[in-house]
């Protein structure tokens, strides 16, 4: 068994959170730069340039890219040959988020009680953590700072098997069009198809971690990703919804087996603050 110490995990996660908040992933920035040329709208071009400049300023000054520093979401794969010493991993992750929030000047963006007081928890905890046990002796930690504006425009539908591809396409494109300027395009669109009602949404969120341009290994799904991206960019939404060609930077689909009666589809909209990073310990 390989031993990993709680303190080591905490420091790594704290750095991961701050790095994610200040520095957009390079593949995403590269794709944004490439998109300027394709954009036909003058305002759209200017917005894309402003977005890139914002990324540069956030990175060079080490400040939050967006004031909505997001809901901290983790996907953690723990190798079954790892022993974590010196603390409970959920507590460690939350402690790391707390410290990153304070030391990194991040906004406290969680309300403890969703219905009544809606009081701010003050430190961005509790984080949402999905654990997965995997073979091996490593821990892989994926982190997303998920903004509320784009999360609010995300949707799930329990389609009928008979709705098929066309039903999926219509639901996805309607969701993107409705999200429009409310969710800060250009988007990356995470789509989960199959599984159960709840699992489809987890798949959609997980899909957002794939690199820009990295297609699904199943060529049929890869083709669907390309088609949906092309169609999304015909909707006219454009950068920040002011109209234009570049509505989405990428579309990523994850699939899972599902019930013979069901066709669950979830669309997780990701704004241009596409803050997803991962580390391995």
């Amino acid at each position: 068994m390989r031993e990993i110490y709680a303190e080591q995990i905490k420091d790594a996660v704290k750095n991961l959170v701050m790095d994610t908040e200040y520095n957009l992933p390079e593949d995403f920035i590269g794709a944004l730069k490439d998109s300027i040329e394709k954009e036909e709208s003058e305002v759209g071009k200017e917005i894309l340039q402003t977005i890139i400049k914002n990324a540069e300023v956030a990175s060079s000054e080490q400040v939050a890219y967006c004031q909505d520093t997001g809901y901290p979401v983790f996907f953690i794969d723990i190798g079954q040959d790892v022993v974590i010493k010196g603390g409970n991993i959920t507590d460690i992750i939350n402690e790391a988020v707390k410290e990153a929030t304070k030391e990194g000047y991040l906004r406290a963006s969680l309300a403890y009680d969703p219905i009544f007081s809606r009081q701010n928890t003050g430190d961005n905890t509790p984080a949402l953590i999905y654990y997965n046990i995997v073979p091996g002796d490593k821990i892989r930690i994926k982190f997303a700072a998920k903004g509320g504006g784009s999360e609010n425009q995300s949707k799930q539908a329990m389609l009928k098997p008979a709705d098929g591809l066309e039903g999926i396409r219509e639901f996805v494109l309607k969701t993107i069009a409705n999200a429009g300027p409310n969710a800060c395009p250009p988007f990356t669109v995470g789509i989960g198809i199959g599984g159960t009602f709840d699992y489809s949404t987890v798949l959609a969120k997980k899909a957002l971690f794939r690199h820009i341009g990295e297609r699904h290994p199943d060529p049929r799904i890869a083709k669907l990703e390309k088609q949906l991206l092309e169609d999304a960019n015909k909707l006219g939404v454009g950068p920040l919804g002011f109209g234009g060609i570049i509505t989405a930077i990428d579309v990523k689909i994850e699939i899972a087996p599902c019930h013979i009666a069901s066709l669950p589809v979830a669309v997780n909209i990701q704004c241009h603050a596409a803050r997803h990073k991962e580390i391995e310990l």
Partner: protein
Amino acid sequence: MNEPKRITTPLTDEIIQDLKIGDRILLNGVVYTARDAAHKKMLQEYEETGKLPFDVKGQIIYYVGPTPAKPGQVIGSAGPTTAYRMDKYTPKLHELGLKATIGKGWRTPPVKEALKKYKAVYFAAYGGVAALLSKHIVHAEIIAYEELGPEAIRKLVFKDFPVVVANDIYGGDIFQEGQKKYRKICI
């Protein structure tokens, strides 16, 4: 793209009448912040006492919850939040004299009607470019509801803060107009 116009708060009917969708504006002067929790609290307070925590006449509300300021900063990252969530409260504030709001995304019909009726506008700021926008804020202080943390009401001073007129008193909508031109498929 048109040249930006400089405007200084407070806003008057004359200034508002001149604003058309797509106009690029550099805002200067005092602006107040409020978002979800502050709106709820503010309108509740108005119902109970007949008063708001600040006089909205001629003023602008910016929908923002900034990050904490780092040492040496006036304010942390401070971009707009999605405006429609405030639409339940916005017509009343315009009735009480509020002249403009700043946010991102589209507004619902009751707000668009209120803009026409009470002579007010909705400005869109560029969403998500929060590190850049904070550089156009030269002063920030909490004036009410400190307990709401990032949602407290702040008095800001803007210096050439860039916005676009998104909804005007003539019923225009910049997002609908802009998107129409580039839509190539119907769904």
